[in-house]
C-alpha cells in the first residue's frame, strides 16, 4: 500500500514522467541489445552506445543524475522520492545482474560498468568513468599494447559519447588516457608487466581522484575563518566536504544556501548542513544580491573548469559571481583536477547545450518559451581562487596545468 501511494505521488511529478520516459527507452534498448546478440568485446564498445541520452530533446543525462542524487522535489516528498529513486535502480540492478551477472567470459561493457559505479551518490561521475576504464584494462583480452590502447580509446570514446553534456566525464576520460598511457615503462617491458603497470597507474589515478575531495577540503580550511558567512550555490559534494571539515574543526561560521532551482539541490545541501549543526539560512535564488552584503565569501563547486580558468557550473553561478564581484566579495571554487577540460568558451552560448526540464508548478502556455539550459559559464575575472587537489590556484594557472598535461 505504501508502495502504491509513493508510486502514485511520484508519478504525479512531471519530472518523473519525463525521467521515466527517457530512462525506460534506453534501458530497454540496452537490455534488449545485451540479450539478443552478445557481441565480441571490441565491437561492444564500438557500438553506438547502448544508453545514449536522448539526443533528440537534448536533456542532459548529467543533470538527470545530479537531480536523482541530490535534487529535492519537495520537503514532504523527500523521503518517498528517495525511496522511489532508490527502488528504481534496484530493479535495474536486478536486471543488470540477471543480464550480466554472467561469468567473466561474457562480454564486458564499459557503459554498464560505468553505470554501476555511477549509482553511488558519493562517487563523482568522472571517478566512475575512471573506475570503469580501469576495469576495461583489467578485463581486456588484448595481447598487444596497441590493441589494448585502441580498446581503451574506444571505451573512453563510448563513455564520452554516452553523455556529451557532462564536462567532467569527458575531461576525466581524457585525463585518464593521458595519465595511464603516458608512461615510458610501456616501451620496453613485455606486455603482461606493462599491463600490470597500466592497471597500477589506473588504480592510482582512481585513488587520487577519489581522494581529491578530502585534499581540497584540507586546503580550503585556512580560508574559512571564525564568524564568517559563506554563500553556497546548489549542491556540490566538494563544497559540502569543505564545510563538513570546517565544522569538524570547530570553526564557527554560517552558511547561506541558495534554493538551487529547478532541481532545488540547495535544499538538500541545507539539510546536510543542518545535520552538522551549522547555522544555515535558505535563500531563494533571486535573493542573492539582497543578502550579499552580509556574505564574506562565495563558495561554489564546478561541473567543469575550462582553459581560460573560468568555470562551467549550475545555472546561476555566473550571476552570483557578478554580484559578488561588484560587491568585492571573494568567489572561491572547489573543483577536483579531473574537471579541468580542454574547452574555451568565449561567452555563454559558446558551449554545447545541456538542457533539463523545469517545472513551474502551473501549466505554461505553449507559446511561452522556457529557458532550459542547465548551466552557465563564469569567466575567470570573476573568480578569486580555485581550490583543487593540485593546490590553491589562481584561475590563470588552470591553463598552465592543462598545457603541461596535454602538450
Amino acid at each position, binding site marked *: 500500500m505504501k508502495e502504491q501511494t509513493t508510486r502514485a505521488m511520484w508519478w504525479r511529478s512531471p519530472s518523473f514522467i519525463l525521467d521515466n520516459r527517457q530512462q525506460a527507452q534506453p534501458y530497454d534498448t540496452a537490455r534488449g541489445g545485451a540479450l539478443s546478440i552478445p557481441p565480441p568485446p571490441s565491437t561492444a564498445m564500438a557500438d553506438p552506445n547502448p544508453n545514449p541520452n536522448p539526443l533528440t530533446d537534448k536533456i542532459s543525462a548529467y543533470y538527470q543524475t545530479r537531480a536523482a542524487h541530490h535534487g529535492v522535489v519537495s520537503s514532504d516528498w523527500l523521503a518517498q522520492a528517495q525511496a522511489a529513486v532508490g527502488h528504481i535502480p534496484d530493479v535495474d540492478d536486478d536486471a543488470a545482474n540477471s543480464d550480466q551477472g554472467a561469468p567473466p567470459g561474457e562480454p564486458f561493457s564499459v557503459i554498464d560498468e560505468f553505470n554501476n559505479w555511477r549509482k553511488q551518490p558519493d562517487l563523482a561521475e568522472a571517478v566512475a568513468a575512471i573506475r570503469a576504464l580501469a576495469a576495461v584494462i583489467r578485463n581486456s583480452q588484448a595481447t598487444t599494447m596497441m590493441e589494448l590502447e585502441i580498446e581503451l580509446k574506444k571505451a573512453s570514446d563510448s563513455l564520452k559519447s554516452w553523455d556529451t553534456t557532462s564536462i567532467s566525464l569527458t575531461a576525466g576520460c581524457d585525463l585518464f588516457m593521458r595519465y595511464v598511457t603516458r608512461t615510458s615503462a610501456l616501451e620496453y617491458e613485455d606486455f603482461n608487466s606493462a599491463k600490470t603497470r597500466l592497471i597500477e597507474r589506473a588504480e592510482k589515478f582512481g585513488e587520487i581522484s577519489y581522494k581529491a575531495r578530502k*585534499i581540497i577540503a584540507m*586546503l580550503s580550511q585556512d580560508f574559512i575563518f571564525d564568524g564568517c558567512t559563506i554563500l553556497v550555490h546548489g549542491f556540490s559534494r566538494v563544497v559540502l566536504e569543505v564545510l563538513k571539515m570546517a565544522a569538524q574543526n570547530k570553526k564557527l561560521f554560517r552558511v547561506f544556501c541558495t534554493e538551487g532551482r529547478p532541481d532545488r539541490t540547495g535544499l538538500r545541501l541545507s539539510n546536510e548542513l543542518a545535520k552538522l549543526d551549522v547555522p544555515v539560512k535558505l535563500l531563494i535564488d533571486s535573493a542573492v544580491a539582497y543578502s550579499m552584503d552580509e556574505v564574506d565569501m562565495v563558495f561554489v563547486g564546478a561541473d567543469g573548469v575550462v582553459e581560460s*580558468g573560468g568555470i562551467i557550473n549550475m545555472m546561476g553561478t555566473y550571476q552570483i559571481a557578478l554580484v559578488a*564581484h561588484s560587491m568585492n566579495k571573494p568567489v572561491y571554487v572547489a573543483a577536483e583536477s579531473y574537471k579541468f577540460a580542454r574547452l*574555451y568558451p*568565449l561567452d555563454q552560448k559558446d558551449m554545447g547545450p545541456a538542457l533539463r526540464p523545469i517545472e513551474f508548478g502551473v501549466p505554461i502556455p505553449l507559446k511561452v518559451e522556457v529557458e532550459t539550459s542547465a548551466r552557465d559559464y563564469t569567466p575567470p*575575472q570573476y573568480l578569486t*581562487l580555485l581550490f583543487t587537489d593540485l593546490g590553491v590556484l*589562481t584561475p590563470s594557472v588552470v*591553463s598552465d596545468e592543462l598545457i603541461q598535461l596535454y602538450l
Partner: protein
Amino acid sequence: MDARRGSLPVPRVRQVGFFTPNAQPAPTRSQSGPPDSSSPPLSDSPASNSLSPVMIPPPRHHSDNLAAAPRPTSPLPVPEPSPFRRRGADNNNALLVGSYNPAETLLAMSPSSSHVGDGESEETMSGGWFRRSNSGKLASSLPSGTFDFSPVQSTAEALKPNKVQNPVGISVLNNTILAEVSARPAPKEQQPEAPSSSKQPKPKLTKAERRALQESQRAAKAAAKAVAAPEEVATIKSVKQHQTQKKDAPQVAVSVAASERKGGDKSQEKERRKDAPAPRMQFDDKSRVEKAKRRSVVDQTEAKKRVELFRHLPQYEHGTQLADLESKFLQLDPMHPAIYKVGLQYLAGDISGGNARCIAMLQAFQQVVKDYSTPPEKTLPRDLTAKISSYVSFFTQCRPLSMSMGNAIRFLKNRIAKLSPSLSESESKSSICTDIDRFINEKIVLADRVIVQHASSKVKDGDVLLVYGSSCVVEMVLLHSHELGKQFRVIVVDSRPKLEGKALLRRLVAKGVHCTYTHINAVSYVMHEVTKVFLGASSVLSNGTVYSRVGTACVAMVAHAFRVPVIICCEAYKFHERVQLDSICSNELGDPDAIGKVPGRMDVNYLNDVSNSGNLQLLNLMYDATPADYVSMIVTDYGMIPPTSVPVIVREYRRDHLLI
C-alpha cells in the same frame, strides 16, 4: 594528473607568469607589473612577487625605492585594477627627466591611463597625496619607473650589471652585444670577482629567487664601486673567444671563486644570457648613432624633425635610400645578392607582414648557406654566424626587424652553433638548409594550419566577425570557415595610411564572403553588431601584451567595452619573453609624410606648405601594444590559450623553438 605537489596542509597561491616565489624585497624593486592584473593580491607583497628578472630596473632608482615602504596587502582578495603603479609617486623626481610636455596627449592614451583614478586613491593612502597636485597625473599615468625618459643612461646602466658579471657569464654574449659594449666610449665599471666575495649561497632558493638576489647584489655593487678599467674589456674579449671555441667542453673556471660560486648553475646562467635580448639601439644617442652610421651599408639621411617622445627610434627620410642602395649594388661585394634583394624588398615595402618577411629572410639565408664556402683558416660555424650577423644588421638598416624575425635568427644561429664539428662542410650546409626548411614548415606553415583549425571552430553560423587590417592567418581563418560552409559576415576595418584592409577585402569578396568595409573611425558604430573580433599580431609578449599593427589596441578596447570577445591569432614562434607596457619604448616609425598626404585628393593639401614649418612634427607609428586585459583568447599552434598563459608557452617551448 597526479598530485604532484602532494598533500599540502598550507594553501599556496600559484600564479602564472613572472614571479619570484617568496622573494624577499630587494632594494632594486621599483617597477613591476603583475602578470595578470585580475589575479588577486593574496600574497604578502604582490609587487615584489610579480617582479620579473627582465624588469630589474637600473640601479639609479634604488635609493628611491628603499624609501618606499612595503604596502599593506589589500584585505580583500578580489580582482581589481592593479594598484601597482602607485610607486610612481615616490619616483617623481626621477621621472621628470626629459621632456614629456609635447606628448601629454599621447601619454593619456597609454594603456595605464585607465588606472589613473586608482593610482590617485592609492596615493592618498600612502600619504603622498600632496604631490598629486603637481605631478600626480603624470606619475599615475606612467608605469612607475619603467618608462624612462632618458633611455640612454638607463641602457648604459642596465648594461652595467651584465658587464660587471663574472667573465664566464659574459663569454656567451653574442657578438652584437659585445660589439656594442666595446664600442661604448665611456670606461666601464669592471668587477669580475665581485660576486664571489659577497655571495652567500642559500641552500634552498629557487632559480628565480637566486636570480633576483644576484641581480640586486650586482646592481648594488655597480652603484657602489666605480673602478675604471678599460683594458679589462680586452681581457674579457679574449677570454670570450677562448671560451666559445670550446663551448661544448665543460667550462674552465676563469676565476676559482666564480666557479665554485656558480657550480651547476653556470650553464643555466649561460643559456639565460644567450637568450636575453640584445639591448636595442637608442637612436637619440648621438655618438652611437654616428658609430653605427660609419659601419652601415645603407646611407640613410635621418629625418630632421622628430617627435620628441620617439627620438629613440630610428627614422629616416623616406625615398632617399632606395635609389642610393640600388646604385651601390655592385660595390657591395660582401653582400649576397639574395640578401640584397630581400633587403631592398623590405625597404620598398614589397614584402610586408610578419610571416612573409620572416620566410623571405630565411629563404635568403638558405641561399646564402648554399653558396657558402668556408674561407681558409676559418671554421664554418663561427664564420657563418658572423656573416649572418652582418646580413642581419643590413636587414635592420633596411627596416627594423620584427620580433618573429629575431626569434628565427636566434633559431638559425643556435642551429649553426650546435653543428657537430665532425660534419663535413657540405653536410653542415645541407643540415642547416633542412633546418631552415623545417622551421618554415613547422613553425609557420603547419602552425598556421593548426591555428586555422582551432579558430574556425569558434566561428558559428550567424556570426559577424570584425577584422582589422590584413593578417594572413586571420584571412586563412575566414576563408577556411567559409569553405566549411559557415554562414557569417565579415566587417573589415581599415585605417590610413596603409589601407591594407582593401587588399584583404578584395580577396574575401572574390571568394564570396559577405563583407562590410569601414574605417577605424566607425569602429564604435559597427561594434554593436559584431559577435567576435579576430586580430592578427606581430608578436605576443610575455605579459600577454599583443604587439600588432597600430590601431589594434583601439579595436580591442572598443570590442572590450562592447563585451565582444577578442581573439588573437598568432603563431607561437612570434611569442617573445620580453615585457612591454606601452608602445613607446619599442616601436617602428613609418614615413611621416604618409599621414599628411591623401592620395588622389588634391584638395586636401592643407599640410603642403606647413610641413616644413619648425613647429609641426608628424608621427606615423607602425605598431601598438594591446594590454592583455582586452584579449579574450590567443589562438596559437598549441591550442587556444588565455593571454596569461603566454609565458607558460614561452617557458616550456623555448627550447623547442631553438632545437625544433
